[in-house]
């Protein structure tokens, strides 16, 4: 077990380092000094307590969408719909926040519950379609993204419009915001909010559910092999729907932290990019809750530091975006790194020179009896 964990540790680090190296090559090619670039990138995300707060604030919705994707993935489902679930979660939270004049704790609790329920129900539908009609969840969740997009497009101007603008909702009152005086003060006026606390709680909660409960046992069993799970008496369809629902609820909560924490109103016409970044976060985090936490913070750091790198160097924003995307790409493909490491090891093991030949084709991975 220890060797395995050590291997995972090395793999993710190598993946990140490779990503950074690829980014450095891009910077060199565009005529910039990569060392300076990275210095400013990381300083932009970390150099003072406010920026650190912003890094965490940026990471918060990513933690939720990452958890969402990872959770569904554990049941063998690919949730591409985190963006739409975020929107619906945000819409439900905003609706509650703008409608009820309750005291802050009650209001916040109600908003979060609404977001959880909204996102959950939004994802339950693709889950049900999958269970009942075997509709592929990738297709249905993508469709649901656009339904959410246009639902928000209609609902916000119709019911929650501000006095002037058609394109965004009214600003949420302070009692309905996850931004909190003491936390903002602690981080020097950054955009950090209670969402981060909530996110960490849910990281622990999902880890607990997956590893310690019979429910998690069932979910993972269905994810690994739904046929065997069914033969063993596990209700596969119920688990598919539940898994999607929980994944949606997590993304919905992410929406609440985004629209009622990081931002303070909803804009129409924007599908939040955090929904899709969640896929990369989940990959880099190896679909484990703690891994997702780490990966989301890393992504938050990149996104937060990017602007400062732009401002301090002559790297244009488009190149900077490309660099970030490259780092994410490499970081998310740790499987590739694994194969390369394997090859290197094999090569070193042999005493003879390598005979000619291209890359391994279709080598069966499990193949050999041991």
């Amino acid at each position, binding site marked *: 077990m220890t060797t395995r964990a050590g291997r995972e540790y090395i793999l993710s680090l190598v993946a990140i380092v490779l990503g950074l190296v690829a980014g450095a090559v891009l910077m060199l090619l565009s005529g910039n000094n990569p060392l300076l670039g990275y210095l400013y990138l990381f300083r932009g995300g970390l150099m003072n307590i406010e920026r650190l707060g912003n890094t965490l604030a940026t990471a918060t919705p990513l933690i939720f969408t990452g958890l969402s994707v990872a959770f569904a993935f554990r049941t063998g489902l690919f949730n591409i719909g985190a963006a739409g679930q975020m929107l619906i979660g945000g819409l439900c939270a905003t609706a509650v926040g703008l409608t009820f004049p309750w005291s802050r704790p009650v209001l916040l609790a109600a908003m979060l519950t609404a977001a959880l329920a909204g996102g959950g129900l939004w994802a339950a539908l693709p889950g049900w379609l999958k269970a009942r009609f075997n509709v592929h969840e990738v297709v249905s969740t993508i469709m649901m993204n656009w339904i959410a997009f246009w639902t928000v497009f209609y609902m916000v101007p119709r019911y929650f419009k501000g006095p002037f603008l*058609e394109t965004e909702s009214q600003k949420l009152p302070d009692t309905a915001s996850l931004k909190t005086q003491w936390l903002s003060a602690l981080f020097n006026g950054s955009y950090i909010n209670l969402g981060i606390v909530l996110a960490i709680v849910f990281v622990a909660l999902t880890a607990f559910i997956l590893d310690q409960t019979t429910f998690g046992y069932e979910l993972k069993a269905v994810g690994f092999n739904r046929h065997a799970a069914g033969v063993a008496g596990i209700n596969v369809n119920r688990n598919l729907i539940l898994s999607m629902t929980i994944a949606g609820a997590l993304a919905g909560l992410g929406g609440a932290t985004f629209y009622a924490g990081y931002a303070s109103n909803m804009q129409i016409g924007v599908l939040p990019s955090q929904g899709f970044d969640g896929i990369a976060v989940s990959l880099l985090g190896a679909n484990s809750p703690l*891994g997702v936490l780490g990966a989301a913070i890393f992504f938050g750091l990149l996104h937060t530091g990017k602007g400062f790198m732009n401002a301090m160097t002559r790297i244009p924003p488009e190149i900077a975006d490309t660099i970030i995307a490259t780092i994410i790409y490499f970081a998310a493909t740790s499987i590739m790194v694994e194969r390369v490491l394997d090859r290197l090891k094999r090569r070193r093991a042999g005493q003879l020179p390598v005979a000619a030949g291209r890359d391994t084709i279709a080598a069966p991975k499990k193949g050999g009896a041991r």
Partner: protein
Amino acid sequence: MLKRGISFVLVLVLAAAMFSGCGKQADKPEPGKPALKVGMVTDFGTIDDKSFNQGTWEGVLRAGKEFGLETRYLKPVGTTEADYMKEIGNLSDAGFKLIVCPGFKFETAIFQAQDKYKDTKFVLIDGYPHKGDWAPVVKENTVSIFFAEHESGFLAGLAAALQLKEGEFGFIGGMEIPPVQKFNWGFQQGVKYANTNYGTNVSMKAENVIYQGTFDNVAAGQQLAAQMYDRGVRAIFTAAGGVGVGSINEAKARAKAGKEAWIVGVDVDQYGEGVYEGNKSVILTSAMKYIDVAAYDMIKAEKEGKFPGGQILTFSAVNDGIGIPKTNPNLSDDVYKKVMDAFAKLKNGSLKVSDTQGDLLR
């Protein structure tokens, strides 16, 4: 799995410690008076959007070249106040002490930024700072710039009606936001003005006044335009960014096939966008806002120590902030002359265009 997660967190904490440590000394700006550096934060969309971002950036670049200033633009990750604030902070921290922000979406961000970065000056185009309640609070380090889009739309509507004399006109807007609405309402008034004063017979129907809802759905723009042309519309005024690009494409396809299809452009002179054969273009004329001029003027003023801080400026016919292009191959000289007459009247105040809906369509 568990270990992997912990390792991440550990690495990040370490990195945080490293960078925050060395950040402290380098953070402070150098003593003495540094040269002026001008920054810009883009709105939704890219820097080459042939519209708002591009116009602003061209003004910044021109000023930069002329006065030998360092210029830089940043592209926020999203469109929330927090995203804008981060980029403003990045520019300010990097020594860019004059920051131009195009778009009303910056309003609440600038409201905070003008207090948070007191040593930085802000130019906000198409909006004014407020804390979310639309009560303007323009501090000494901020200038807020508006355009009289209704006047610009008025002139374009007048020109189009005079040139085509009769038939149906249409309007395709992007999002239903004030600048776009004002273009629409001004355009309708321009058409009416031509009908009343020059005897033209141009009409607009409610079904042909549409806000698509985004600024980037090219396909939808094409489809909407096709439907309007099929309903017999002769010219469409598009104030819709990428949606308008789609409409222009549709018009070009029709023109190529020998059918009549006109577009009235927006923000900048879009004649070049509408060229479909040789130098023939579907762009009748364009309702222009001189965004680049506004950006340039503000930088120039700051350079000369005359930054109009605390003010809300309106660029209109009075200060040549709006208009239609100087050359319009698709307009006759007579039409252009009549439009210029109206422009002169707007300038001297003898002609007024309303910037509210009143009894106009949508």
